[in-house]
């Protein structure tokens, strides 16, 4: 009997020791964040750099819930099938706790079915197409989208232009001409503006009282073998718009501006919305007074301590300047998620979702990030972009006025 008791006590001790050691190991296991970014592209590369910076800061501050944070990055190569298989691998092989990343809508659209299969908390910083929102649907509470949707961006520009008109009476916008590249990006932009115009004609929507007339012409982007914009620019010149906008790629920026000068086109506002700018664009005289829409500019450092902190730390870690707004968005991606986990005090899904919905995060893009519903999904982050102008080689924020770093230079002259 005595022998049995001794054996029983030893067995119990072994069980307790083993369970304790498993507990300790679980506490020391890192919290894994799986990121899918296009590493061959500057947006993906800089976003990943910024995510690494955020993870480093978290770990230096003691990690999350007392555990280290590990970032696992897979290159999507901007290919939809690669992006989808990356999610699969992160979920099964790496067993990550969360999904983060960006950028292209086409890639993210292919990832949605896989994300829906695993239903892990996902915080995405890119992919602006409303087709993503439709694919996600209204019932997926684990899905958080931080980048403004395409329709939100278009609306925010209208609010911006109206504010600018009010503050600067010399700025008058009644007619808008959109030059759009022939691909999905440009065509979507054109269709959005066309919808805004139809609503505006009925006195409704964000462009009411702003867009009395509208026209658009497509062009073949230099990124796809084009590069001769003169026929399109001539049509724009004949239309004589108050606001000229081109929706194309960074490869179009300089050749189009060069051809603008060639044909003598000088609209009062020359605006563009490329995902990025060519190397050293700011040093080119062609950049002067060009307006564009974006989420972030270096000049935000003057008005936002968080932006300045991000800028300094990014350069210190990577010895390179951030040039795309996907860098501060990548940083935001990790810190926003980490704050949600920290506030929840657990990795339990429902608690983290609730916590993320409550957060007000002061982000380096100069705007406080707060979750609110969009047209379909319930967890949308930012809802507006900024109006920025190249002035003396620097990107100056001209709207929203609370983070503005300069006044608009009007009209556009060269």
């Amino acid at each position, binding site marked *: 009997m005595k022998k049995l008791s001794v054996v029983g006590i030893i067995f119990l001790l072994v069980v307790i020791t083993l369970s304790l050691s498993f507990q300790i190991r679980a506490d020391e296991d890192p919290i894994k964040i799986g990121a899918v970014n296009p590493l*061959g*592209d*500057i947006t993906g590369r800089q976003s990943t750099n910024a995510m690494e910076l955020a993870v480093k800061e978290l770990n230096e501050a003691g990690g999350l819930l007392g555990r280290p944070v590990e970032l696992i990055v897979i290159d999507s190569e901007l290919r939809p099938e690669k992006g989808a298989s990356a999610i699969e691998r992160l979920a099964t092989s790496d067993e990550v706790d969360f999904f983060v990343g960006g950028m292209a809508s086409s890639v993210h659209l292919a990832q949605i079915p896989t994300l829906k299969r695993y239903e892990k908390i996902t915080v995405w910083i890119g992919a602006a197409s409303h087709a993503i929102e439709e694919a996600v649907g209204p019932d997926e509470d684990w899905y958080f989208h931080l980048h403004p949707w395409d329709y939100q961006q278009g609306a925010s520009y209208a609010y911006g232009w109206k504010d600018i008109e009010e503050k600067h009476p010399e700025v008058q916008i009644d007619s808008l001409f959109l030059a759009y590249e*022939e691909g999905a990006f440009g065509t979507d932009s054109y269709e959005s503006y066309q919808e805004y115009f139809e609503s505006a004609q009925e006195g409704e929507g964000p462009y009411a009282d702003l867009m009395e007339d509208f026209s658009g*012409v*497509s*062009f*073949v982007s*230099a*990124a*796809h*073998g084009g*590069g*001769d914009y*003169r*026929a*399109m620019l*001539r*049509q724009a010149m004949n239309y004589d718009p108050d606001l000229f906008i081109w929706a194309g*790629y*960074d*490869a*179009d*920026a*300089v*050749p189009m501006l*060069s*051809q603008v*000068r*060639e*044909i*003598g086109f000088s609209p009062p506002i020359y605006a563009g919305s490329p995902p*990025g700018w*060519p*190397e*050293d*664009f700011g040093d*080119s*005289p*062609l950049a002067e007074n060009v307006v564009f829409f974006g989420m972030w500019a270096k000049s935000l450092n003057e008005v936002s301590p968080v932006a300045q902190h991000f800028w300094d730390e990014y350069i210190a870690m990577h010895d390179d300047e951030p040039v795309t707004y996907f860098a501060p968005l990548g940083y935001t991606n990790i810190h926003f998620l980490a704050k949600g986990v920290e506030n929840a005090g657990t990795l339990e899904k429902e608690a983290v979702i609730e916590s993320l919905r409550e957060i007000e995060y002061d982000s380096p893009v100069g705007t406080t990030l707060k979750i609110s519903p969009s047209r379909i999904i319930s967890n949308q982050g930012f809802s507006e972009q900024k109006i920025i102008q190249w002035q003396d080689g620097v990107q100056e924020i001209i709207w929203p006025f609370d983070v503005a770093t300069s006044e608009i230079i009007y009209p556009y002259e060269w």
Partner: protein
Amino acid sequence: MKINQKKTSWLFAILFFIVIIVGIWDASALIYGLQRGSLYALIALPLAMVLGIMDILNLAHGELLTVGLYASYVLFINFSIDPLISTLPVFIFLVILGGIIYFLTIKKVLGEGHLPQLLLTFGISIMLIELIKIYWTTRPRNVYRAYASSSITIGNFRIGSYEFLYVFLAFAVFLLLKLFLKKTRLGQAVYAVGQNPRGAEIVGINVDLVYLFIFCLSSGILGLTAGVMLPRVSIFPLTGNPFSLISFALVAMAGMGSINGILLAGITLGIAEAVIQAIPGYGGWSDLVFFGVLIAVIMAKNIQEA
């Protein structure tokens, strides 16, 4: 495929008709088409030479143009050499690069049929693209020169003047090439090799040397073109890629080895493209019309030959 002097009267007739109609309707479209078409012809010429004389399908054609653009860019950024001045060093650089590519790769697949050639040149194309990505990333780069935006004004008519350089260069290169082929011993040897390489070898012509010369010269012409293009374009790893397709289209339209035909085909397609782009609301149809004209001309040519 042999180098030849095909009858191009039908192309002349089409082009003349188009020029008259378009000139009356919109003179700017005519000029833009002439400028762009000349550029297309200039880029397609080296492909036609390599295909017509060496019977090599070079899928790395566009990438050699891209290399030329980056070479000119590097000379501008590092040594402040104007792109127009850099045409000469870039020409020489591409001649040397062409020679290296020929010795290391192309020479091994001469006469091996088109499949090994396609696979080989496709591999070269991908390697060049990836190397450029590693060194310069995918971010576009530009060289701004004020003269590239210059224009001339006649009455109310304002037209860009820089791209007339494409027209001048295209005609100059075509003329010099024709003179070279007709008036020099090496040119005659090229003709002979293009017509019948085996026969040329029997009569003592160094066919290998002729092939090397043609591949180097065609690469050099791309270098020359790159220097002139640089102030007007954005450069990125895939800049030259679409020009491969355009070049193949022009060669198919002109007929293999037809030098006159390349120039005429380039201008014809350039004008057709410019006309469509000038019609409000139909700019997106330019590719459709470009390749529609190509198909129509090839079919018309076949009917004529039948």
